[in-house]
């Protein structure tokens, strides 16, 4: 078990209904990072002072995956061992990405759907019974629902730990 690690999308210009973060576990049960536990999700905006109500979903994403900015998770305990999850532009196994420019045709299965005010931001910290686990080769996404009036200055992060 290793972590916690955090995948960060920082101050990006986004599009409507965008996948902000994708996190896909490693394929083989015997390899590192094949089972991940999501510890925290945040979404916030710094590009406007105008209020707007938007939706956000936490979901499972099936292949075909979208097109992302490759984003390697950072250890939250600075300087400790790197995550078994790397970065990928294509939703590859054992990899993370942010700020999708194309969503991909794969099915999205929503686990949680919530609304939030962009000025307050969205923070989800699960209680033990609310925990989301990502099994081998499966992908977890944080996806915006709606069209932001201001698309600049968006942040998102997913904090997780490796259970394997």
């Amino acid at each position: 078990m290793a972590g916690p690690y955090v995948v960060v999308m920082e101050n990006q210009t986004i599009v409507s209904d965008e996948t902000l973060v994708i996190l896909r576990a490693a394929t083989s049960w015997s390899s590192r990072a094949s089972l991940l536990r999501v510890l925290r999700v945040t979404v916030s905006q710094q590009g406007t002072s105008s209020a707007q109500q938007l939706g956000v979903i936490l979901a499972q994403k099936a292949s075909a995956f979208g097109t992302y900015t490759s984003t390697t998770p950072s250890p939250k305990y600075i300087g400790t061992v790197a995550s078994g999850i790397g970065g990928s532009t294509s939703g590859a196994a054992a990899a993370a990405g942010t700020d999708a420019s194309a969503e991909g045709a794969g099915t999205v299965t929503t686990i949680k759907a919530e609304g939030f005010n962009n000025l307050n931001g969205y923070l989800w910290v699960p209680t033990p019974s609310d925990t989301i686990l990502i099994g081998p080769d499966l992908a977890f996404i944080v996806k915006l629902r709606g069209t932001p009036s201001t698309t600049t200055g968006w942040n998102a992060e997913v904090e997780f730990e490796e259970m394997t």
Partner: protein
Amino acid sequence: MTIKTPAGDLDDGTVYDLTLRHGSSERVIQSGHIRSFEQDGEMRHEVTGWVEVWEATPGPERTYETLTIGFLAENVRAFTALG
């Protein structure tokens, strides 16, 4: 391989300054190295290069970061080959 885009043909292995469409805005990648690969039976493209960050705060805070960004050929707006 050659990537057919609305702005013309790109070759992976060549370095480009590249402008990609991203929703209603654009992303400019400087000195971008292009790589194509197959995943799940689909050809995919990505570019690694300098990208301006802190877009919301132009001025002295502007900085550049090396990012690897996936892109669809149809989203290439413009490019200049650097060699």
